[in-house]
C-alpha cells in the first residue's frame, strides 16, 4: 500500500458514486453477454476491479457507458482466454443458444404467457446471436442505442440497423407462426 490515503478515499468516493449504482445494470448486461450466471458475476467483478483502478482518471461523464466499455474489454479478454473459437463458431453459438433456452425455463418462465408473448419469446430465441443480443440489450434491458454500441463495440447506426432487422424477423416469425396476423390477435 504505497499510495497516500487521500487517494484511496477519493477512489472509494468515486467508486461509490459512479460504479455501485450501476451494479444491477452491469449484472444484467453481463448475464446477457455471458449467458451464464457464474460467468456474469465474474465478469462484473472483473469490471469493478478495472473500474476501481481507473476511476481517478474517469471524468465523471456517462458512467454507464464508461463501465460498459470496460466490461466489453474485460469480456474480450475473457473470451480470448477461455474459448477463442466461440465468437466465430456458429455451431458453438447455436449450442449456447440451446443451452440458454433450457436454462431459461425457470419457474417464472413456466407461468403461462399470452400466446402473443410466447410467440415473441420463441421468435427471439430463433434470432441469430448478433440480432438477439441487440434486442436483449435495447428492447429488453432498456439500454440506449449508444450504450448498446459501447458494450458490443460497434457504431450506433449498426445497433439500430440490427435492431430493426431483428424486429422485422420477429414480426415475420409471428406472422408465420399464425400467432398474430396484422391486427388480429391470435
Amino acid at each position, binding site marked *: 500500500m504505497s499510495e497516500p490515503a487521500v487517494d*484511496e478515499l477519493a477512489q472509494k468516493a468515486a467508486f461509490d458514486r459512479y460504479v455501485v449504482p450501476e*451494479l444491477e445494470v452491469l449484472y444484467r448486461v453481463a448475464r446477457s453477454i455471458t449467458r451464464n450466471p457464474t460467468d456474469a*458475476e465474474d465478469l462484473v467483478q472483473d469490471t469493478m476491479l478495472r473500474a476501481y483502478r481507473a476511476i481517478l482518471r474517469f471524468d465523471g461523464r456517462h458512467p454507464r457507458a464508461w463501465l460498459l466499455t470496460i466490461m466489453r474489454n474485460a469480456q474480450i479478454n475473457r473470451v480470448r482466454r477461455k474459448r477463442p473459437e466461440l465468437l466465430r463458431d456458429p455451431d458453438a453459438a447455436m449450442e449456447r443458444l440451446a443451452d440458454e433456452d433450457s436454462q431459461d425455463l425457470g419457474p417464472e418462465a413456466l407461468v403461462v404467457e399470452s400466446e402473443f408473448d410466447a410467440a415473441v*419469446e420463441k421468435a427471439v430465441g430463433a434470432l441469430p446471436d448478433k440480432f438477439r443480443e441487440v434486442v436483449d440489450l435495447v428492447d*429488453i*434491458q432498456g439500454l440506449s442505442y449508444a450504450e448498446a454500441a459501447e458494450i458490443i463495440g460497434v457504431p450506433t447506426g449498426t445497433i439500430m440497423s440490427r435492431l*430493426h432487422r431483428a424486429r422485422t424477423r420477429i414480426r415475420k416469425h409471428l406472422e408465420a407462426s399464425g400467432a398474430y396476423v396484422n*391486427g388480429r390477435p391470435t
Partner: protein
Amino acid sequence: MIRRARTRRHRPEVNCREVGKVLQSYLDDDVEPGFADKIAKHLEACRDCGLEVETYRRIKASLAAKLPEVDTAAIDRLRAFGEQLTSGDE
C-alpha cells in the same frame, strides 16, 4: 419528449413505402418531429400501416415486459465485493 415542441406545418403526405421504411425509428422516437407528425397522420388514415405499427408496438411492449428478475443475492455479493475492494485490501 423534447422533440415534440416544434411547430407543425402542413406538408404533403408520406406514402406507405416511406412510412414502412421509418416505422421502427418512428416507434423509437428517432425521427425528426415534423416528419413524425406526417407519419402520425398517415398512420391514422391508413389502415394497413396503422396495423403494422400496432404490431411493432406490441412486439416492443412484449419485449420490454420480459426483463427477468435479477438475482438479488448476486447483486448483494457484488456490493460486498465492492466494499472489500474499496476498503483497501485489493
